[in-house]
């Protein structure tokens, strides 16, 4: 990377840009990295004399992974197979925020082959972890502009992905655990009415339903899981004396094993992995809202609410959405399908655009 003068200029963006204090414009304005930059570097538990990110050439990268099924649509039905592979990638956070998500600056670490989901992501990340250790100590690199060698440090303070990838990264359980959230200690509640068969999922309401004197749990949002919590849970799992003991702890914490990321001296298990905005809001929440408004959400009726939009109106909304394609420049969004007949083909991008710019007009009444 330090062989291309253009790239060096781009990498220096982070050092040169000045942000007003209090504004959040990039990952570097987040608490995780700014706290990290105040700390001294550690190698094998021994503090060194320089801080993280002290040199201009220090690079911060973020790790991401996700499962993808290779056969989709008709092909999957024809071949009757499901082949799931798991690409691992890193992005460079030093680049300007508009650039670092572009395709040519994403570096692939490899693809974990299928056909099934891997059980233990950490063992696949082990080579990357070893490289991270080298990155802390510094790798001898040639600098094209300064014409000299320098130690290149790189750090991985962030990881991100959708819910499943985050669960894999942290080795926690998902919605089948009693504490389904990996960011706070909220306790989920099971659907005990027995109407639906899939009653194993835990849900997380802010207000506990069906109790007299309902109470809002604003407190749960402040009872966050911290790095120390995770370390303590890993320690307890590792030091369990017998299998029965281990199982007891597992049932309580629902953590399968220690995560490899906690071995990095700077990685904050509690804060460094954000929930996936795209999957949570643009896909899952949108899908839930639209199916709710259509009255098709898991066979629920509106109860005492008045939120179901009648079919004739949905037809009109769908046609208006389709019609709007003529008037939206292609740079804004891909072409939108008819939301009434073709909702399955709505991608995250289309849903987000529909929600932000079209909904206020078509749902006005």
């Amino acid at each position, binding site marked *: 990377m330090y062989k291309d003068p253009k790239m060096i200029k781009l990498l220096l963006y982070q050092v040169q840009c000045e942000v007003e204090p*209090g504004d*959040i*414009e*990039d990952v570097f304005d*987040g608490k995780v990295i700014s706290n990290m930059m105040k700390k001294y570097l550690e190698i094998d538990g021994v503090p060194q004399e320089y801080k993280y990110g002290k040199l201009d050439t220090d690079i911060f990268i*973020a790790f*991401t*992974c*996700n499962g*993808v099924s*290779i056969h989709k649509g008709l092909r999957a039905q024809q071949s009757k197979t499901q082949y799931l*592979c798991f*690409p691992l990638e890193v992005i460079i*956070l030093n680049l300007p*925020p*508009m650039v*670092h*998500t572009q*395709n040519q600056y*994403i570096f692939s670490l490899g693809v974990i082959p299928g056909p099934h989901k891997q059980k233990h992501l950490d063992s696949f990340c082990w080579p990357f972890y070893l490289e991270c250790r080298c990155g802390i100590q510094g790798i001898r690199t040639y600098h094209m502009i300064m014409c000299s060698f320098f130690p290149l440090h790189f750090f991985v303070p*962030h990881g*991100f*992905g959708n*819910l499943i*990838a985050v669960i894999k990264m942290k080795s926690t359980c*998902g919605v089948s655990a009693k504490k389904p*959230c990996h*960011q*706070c200690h*909220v306790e989920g509640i099971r*659907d005990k*009415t027995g109407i639906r068969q899939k009653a194993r*999922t835990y*849900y*997380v*309401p*802010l207000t506990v*339903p069906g109790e007299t004197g309902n109470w*809002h749990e604003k407190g749960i*949002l402040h009872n966050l899981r911290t790095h120390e919590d995770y370390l303590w849970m890993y320690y307890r799992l590792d030091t369990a004396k017998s299998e029965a003991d281990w199982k007891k702890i597992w049932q309580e914490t629902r953590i399968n094993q220690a995560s490899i990321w906690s071995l990095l001296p700077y990685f904050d298990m509690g*804060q*460094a992995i*954000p929930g*996936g*905005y795209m999957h*949570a*809001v643009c896909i899952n*929440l949108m899908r*839930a*809202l639209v199916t709710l408004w259509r009255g098709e*959400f898991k066979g*629920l009726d509106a*109860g*005492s*609410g008045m939120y179901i939009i009648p079919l004739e109106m949905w037809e009109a909304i769908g046609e208006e959405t389709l019609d709007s394609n003529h008037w939206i420049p292609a740079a804004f969004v891909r072409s939108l399908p008819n939301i009434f007949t073709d909702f399955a083909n709505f991608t*995250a991008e289309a849903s987000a655009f529909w*929600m*932000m710019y079209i909904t*206020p007009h078509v*749902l006005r009444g």
Partner: protein
Amino acid sequence: MLDLVEIMKTCTKFGITHKEHAQLSEDVYEWCLAYEEYYSQYKPEQLCTMMVALHELDHLPDDILNCGPPTALWEFVTERSMGEVVWSVTS
């Protein structure tokens, strides 16, 4: 219910000021409470409307504070490169 539009617009901005962030946390909390009132109606039968995705929305302001705006770390990146992997598979 359409306050979500404002929430999403703030989230997709490249820079979020401190004031906007404070407004966002308030909006998110109120929106979630409103969602609960409309759809779950505090009834056990309607509990399945309270998905974990909604709970992730609760944590969104904290995530922004910790990791910067969602535009910097979001999964569109992963999805796009996954598309490349899928396209490159031929027999």
